[in-house]
């Protein structure tokens, strides 16, 4: 599997990427299609766009680490 680092990606590009996947962002948090904050299912905190990882398998968006 190829891994793409989002570390140096511009904010606008990250938002475009999220939109392409059916998500969005308010500039700080990742939002789902309904506009609700996406919650990291493992640690139960809202995922920040600057700290997100996006993994295949039902489009899993998680906080880094």
């Amino acid at each position, binding site marked *: *599997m*190829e*891994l*793409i*680092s*989002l*570390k*140096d*990606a*511009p904010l606008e*590009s990250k938002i*475009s*990427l999220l939109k*392409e*996947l059916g998500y969005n962002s308010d500039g700080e948090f990742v939002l789902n299609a309904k506009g609700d904050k996406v919650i990291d299912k*493992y*640690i*139960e*905190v809202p995922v920040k766009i600057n*700290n*997100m*990882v*996006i*993994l*295949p*398998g039902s489009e*899993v968006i*998680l*906080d*880094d*680490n």
Partner: protein
Amino acid sequence: MSSDNFTSDIIKGATKGFLDWSSENIALLVKKFKEKKLAFIKDPQTIEIVKQEYRSGESKFYQKYVKNKEILFLVRIGLVLRKLENNETKLQNLRDKIFRRYKVRGLHIAEFVQAGILNRYLGLIIEDLSFVEELEKEIEEVLGNIEKHTLFVKYNENPFEIIKKVSNIVDSHTPRILIIFGIKSSIEIIRKAKEKIKQLMKNYELGEVSGKDKEILFFKRKLHKNN
């Protein structure tokens, strides 16, 4: 943070940093993502550390002897914590996440591995084992019941509380090995309590790891000749 199957795919993956973030390329990336050919990560360095740890001899060893997936995951996370010891921010970030997900018990398991206590513990018991299968049981017993075997000293406790706790543990289940572990401010608390604890633990042999960042006392019950 997860123990799911995709973790191994991520570990095997090769990281690319620079990218053309044009809308055409983003669409192409999303297409590959939906085909499960790529993943988006944040910090390649974090992935590199995890990769190194998954491939390490220590990790492979525990993979062989720890069958409980959650405990194995925490063991591996403990090894990652050890690698992050020079990066206080990342270390604390990961500790916070372990705590949120796995509560105190999970954090204690990871810390137990991070501090090298599990390796030493096995070093102390291995001479008493007759079969290699016992090793698997011993590891799962000590990690699965970590509070029975280890006293994690908190920064706000005093030496008398530690002595009392040790006394209670020994009276309640006479562990074969009792470990007392502390970092930062807890180091001094353990050092102050040590002599009294030694008096309480006359049937135990003491081994210790003493450093500027941690203090670990290992008390191993003495075996009598007729045992």
